[in-house]
């Protein structure tokens, strides 16, 4: 591997971590800004630089999620649920250690899958038609509403419904008809994901800072440490493996993406945990699950991109753009004729994963100091960065207004203890669900039997029904036992 490629991997990872940590900037924007600079590079150099930014930014988002409860990217939304409480307890360094190691494991596992299983996994993902994708999103919505807030499932369902209603704004995904814009040109493109996420998580947290004052960390004494965090990651092998598998599977399916994967992995970890009550209070499992899954997605989302030319995410689409700029066409030729470029790129991604750990080790002790800075200094700076982040994607002041509106909505919902995650997920996946629903009915000529005709559909439908009925059966069992007593 040429020394320049090693430098690109290091530079890309570092830049990705920094840009990922700024709310709203994220991997796709950084990659888009870098793309023109890659014209004069070799194909492998360009791919390594952009791929490293992709990996670095996915992890970088978790740093601000942990330290400021402000996810830098949608991929880290779930990391803040337990990472931030850990930072409040003075365990910020430990939480970053867990996030870095889980990201490394998830990223490496995803890379191994990308290396060995690209063609067969691409074939499996082709079996997911519109009906299967519709059922998968439906299952995701139901499992999250049922598990995230056990004390009041209906609150989760209301937030979910509200998110689904909001996801209907803009163009209809099939007919292209405009809906629910109320005459506002801005709403034609629908509710934008990045401003919504910044508002829901960052601005609502700023409100919490305004109310609480003081510092983020409740204790000035730093507990745990980076290396303890590294070690803790391996104390939960089941969570680590499960989340990596979830992330890898979701990454291989085009369209779902990293934004949903971290939330699904978090909810799965909570549902399978022996102590689900500790989730949201600073449990290491709550950091491992989203971080292992989101970095697994970054690698496996390249499977459909490289094998079939179907990008699994916007960042993967940018990588595909870089491929094409350098005259490489996705498909089998990438693994035969241009094998040297492809496998050098994979090696560069492996290096990027390693550099992620190194950069973390060098910088974490300075980063965690932010948790002992008075929030009075942080509030205007976070608001300013949120504003830039939401504006920068489309150069639209409307996006910044949406950020503020979602921040206010999230402030109210947090006060009333409504789960924000249930509002967010339909904004991410709502359009895909609607498209899957209509496309399935168009394929079947209006017959609903398409939703249970294939074995994959039957399986997803089965687990969806089980997820719905299981809490009911458990409650019934509880009542019966009480009656017997």
């Amino acid at each position: 591997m040429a020394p320049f490629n090693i430098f690109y991997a290091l530079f890309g990872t570092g830049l990705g971590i920094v840009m990922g940590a700024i709310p709203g900037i994220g991997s796709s924007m950084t990659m888009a800004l870098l793309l023109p600079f890659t014209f004069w590079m070799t194909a492998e150099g360009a791919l390594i630089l952009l791929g490293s930014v992709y990996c670095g930014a996915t992890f970088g988002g978790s740093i601000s999620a942990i330290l400021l409860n402000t996810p830098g990217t949608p991929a880290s939304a779930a990391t803040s649920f337990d990472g931030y409480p850990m930072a409040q307890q003075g365990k910020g360094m430990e939480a970053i250690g867990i996030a870095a190691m889980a990201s490394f494991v998830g990223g490496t596992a995803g890379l191994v899958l990308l290396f060995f299983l690209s063609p067969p996994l691409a074939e499996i993902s082709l079996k997911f038609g519109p009906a299967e994708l519709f059922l998968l999103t439906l299952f995701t919505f139901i499992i999250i509403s049922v598990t995230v807030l056990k004390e009041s499932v209906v609150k989760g369902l209301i937030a979910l419904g509200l998110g689904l209603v909001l996801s209907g704004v803009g163009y209809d995904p099939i007919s292209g008809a405009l809906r629910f814009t109320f005459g506002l040109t801005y709403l034609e493109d629908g509710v934008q994901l990045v401003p919504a996420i910044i508002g829901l998580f960052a601005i609502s947290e700023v409100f919490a800072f305004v109310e609480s004052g003081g510092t983020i960390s409740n204790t000035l004494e730093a507990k745990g440490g980076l290396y303890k965090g590294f070690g803790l990651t391996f104390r939960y092998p089941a969570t680590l493996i499960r989340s990596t598998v979830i992330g890898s599977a979701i990454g291989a399916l085009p369209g779902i993406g990293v934004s949903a994967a971290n939330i699904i992995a978090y909810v799965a970890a909570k549902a399978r945990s022996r102590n689900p009550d500790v989730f949201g209070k600073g449990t290491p499992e709550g950091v491992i699950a989203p971080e292992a899954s989101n970095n697994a997605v970054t690698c496996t989302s390249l499977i459909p991109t490289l094998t079939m030319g179907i990008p699994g995410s916007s960042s993967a689409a940018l990588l595909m753009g870089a491929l094409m700029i350098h005259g490489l066409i996705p498909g089998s030729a990438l693994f035969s004729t241009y094998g040297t470029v492809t496998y050098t790129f994979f090696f560069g991604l492996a290096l990027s994963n390693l550099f992620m750990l190194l950069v973390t080790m060098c910088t974490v002790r300075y980063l965690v100091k932010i948790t002992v800075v008075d929030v009075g200094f942080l509030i205007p700076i976070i608001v300013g960065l949120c504003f830039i982040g939401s504006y920068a994607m489309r150069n639209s002041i409307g996006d910044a207004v949406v950020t503020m509106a979602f921040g206010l909505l999230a402030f109210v919902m947090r006060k009333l203890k409504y789960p924000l995650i249930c509002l967010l997920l339909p904004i991410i996946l709502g359009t895909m669900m609607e498209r899957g629903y209509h496309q399935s009915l168009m394929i079947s000529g209006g017959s609903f039997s398409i939703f249970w005709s294939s074995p994959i559909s039957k399986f997803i439908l089965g687990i969806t029904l089980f997820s719905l009925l299981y809490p009911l059966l458990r409650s019934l069992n509880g009542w019966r036992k009480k009656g017997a007593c």
Partner: protein
Amino acid sequence: MQIGMKYAESLFLIVCGALSTVFLVVSFDYSDMARAVPNICAVFVLLCVLFRLTQIWRRSGAEKVVLKVHKRAGPFIAMLAGYTAGVSLLGLMLASALFIPICMYWMGHRRLTLIAIITAGYLVLVYLVFVVGFRMPLPDSLLGL
């Protein structure tokens, strides 16, 4: 400021219900395909809202639970609105140059030199990273300032 949780949540639910009703009514102007899924979702929200309202108002002892909102929340919402308007009118740099020190002072910091250094440092960093480094356009002033 304190308000009964029961009343606060009911108000939130009524707003959610009203929004869904508006979507339902407006959707009658659209084709069957364009309105099918949003209609299902809006009806679903209405049913859940009704169920939750029944739950809240039937529960005994719910009056005792109160929702506390800090006195700083209201003025901060006004400051956010002012900043948003300021960015459109004055541009990001000028609006931030006003918002950051005012916000820090309002949060109780009185060391003006420190506030000035942080504000200047932030603005320089934003300019260097976004405008010089990435050639990213930041919101300009509508007033031509």
